[in-house]
């Protein structure tokens, strides 16, 4: 058993390897960690590299893959790449869920019957409240897309990212996601993390290394401690959670990660529910 597989089996290291597919996005949410926007520098990691990482991650003993951005589905080749990656390990892809027009939905055909789940952001049960931070029409597009994705046989999770939410509002949100076909176990609520654009808007919780999950995250800029690591502020990628610039072979970063997890005291990642 490899050192990574052993650490994952013992619960010392989360099994998921994340990759940032890109950094640009059709939205510009006020709490975005990466200052993503339509004109943000794209920093696309590339299809071949994503497949390579998937293969290396499987060989090293990781158990899952995560893909985030930016908005990954701006990359038209993504569905086929995700399908291919899922032959190695199960994939979770984060998306804002606003790009799934009829044509785009048809392009998701390669994902049907694959071990690929989509995590879609939906923060509030009311359009105006939801769209205040995420942009106009966001709510409508998500509510339209989710049942269609579910109908296609694609597993959908809903992620709610908020400063705080009243119980009654959360109840209405949960009723909504159930109605859209997403069960309670596939709904997560998490805080805004005070990095990226959230810093400028004075939003979210301050999270240090010990407060975020130690999930190896690969971007065009290097390997990071967590998907909350390669954030962008004032156009500059943060380096405080950078592990190594070397990502090929992935074992260089994975071994450094293992070393760092061995030195880590207990943190607040569970208490803050940053997942």
């Amino acid at each position: 058993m490899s050192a990574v597989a052993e650490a994952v089996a013992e619960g010392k290291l989360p099994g998921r390897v994340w990759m940032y597919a890109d950094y640009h996005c059709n939205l510009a949410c006020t709490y975005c960690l990466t200052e993503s926007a339509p004109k943000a520098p794209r920093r696309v990691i590339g299809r071949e590299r994503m497949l390579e990482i998937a293969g290396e991650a499987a060989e090293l003993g990781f158990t899952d893959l995560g893909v985030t951005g930016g908005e990954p589905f701006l990359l038209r080749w993504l569905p086929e790449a995700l399908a291919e990656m899922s032959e190695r390990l199960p994939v979770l892809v984060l998306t804002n869920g606003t790009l799934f027009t009829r044509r785009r939905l048809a392009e998701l055909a390669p994902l049907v019957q694959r071990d690929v789940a989509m995590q879609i952001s939906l923060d509030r049960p009311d359009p105006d409240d939801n769209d205040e931070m995420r942009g106009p029409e966001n709510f409508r597009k998500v509510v339209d897309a989710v049942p269609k994705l579910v109908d296609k046989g694609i597993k959908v999770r809903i992620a709610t990212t908020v400063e705080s939410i009243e119980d009654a509002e959360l109840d209405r949100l949960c009723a909504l996601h159930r109605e859209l076909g997403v069960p309670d176990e596939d709904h997560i609520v998490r805080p805004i993390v005070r990095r990226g654009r959230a810093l400028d808007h004075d939003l979210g919780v301050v999270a240090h290394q010990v407060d975020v999950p130690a999930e190896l995250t690969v971007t065009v800029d290097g390997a990071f401690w967590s998907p909350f690591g390669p954030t962008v502020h004032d156009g500059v990628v943060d380096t405080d959670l950078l592990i190594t610039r070397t990502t090929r072979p992935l074992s260089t970063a994975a071994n450094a990660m293992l070393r760092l997890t061995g030195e880590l005291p207990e943190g607040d990642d569970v208490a803050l529910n940053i997942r």
Partner: protein
Amino acid sequence: MATVRLLDAEQAPLLARPFYAKGDPGPIVASLAQVPELLETAMPFISTALGPSAISWRDKELVIVRTSAVLECSYCVATHTAVALDAGLSHQEVRALRGEEDIASAFRDPRELALLAWVGELAGGRGSVPAAVRDGLHAHWEDHEVVELTVVVGATMLLNRLATGLELPVSAGTERRLAAEGLR
């Protein structure tokens, strides 16, 4: 102003954090921190090569200041001028190492003169060191010392090119010290 972003403690990558534990680590660490895996490998090597060892502090500073002057690295010359004074070198010796005075008039010890002649050839020349210079060194220095001194020259040249290439800034403290010593 350096040509790359020098990472402060707040932006120090995880593997680089130990190097910031005692405060500002200086621009060499702050630049190498951009590539943490390189930093954590390079710094122990550099510290071993240039730090306390079987070669005396004075002899190491002779090599470092002379090499830096030959390579015209203003950052390393300034920084190690201050260190050389701390190691007990005189103002005249430092000026000679920096190429501002004649080496033969500042240094009398044949051992040191042999070393400086060899440093000049190794750091400033191309190809092999002339036989007379090489033999002069070996007449005064043991094999293990020659090996270590060679590594000191090499490590210094690495830093010379790093500091020059990235235009690393000399610290205000060093600037003040050199001004006070009349060695700016």
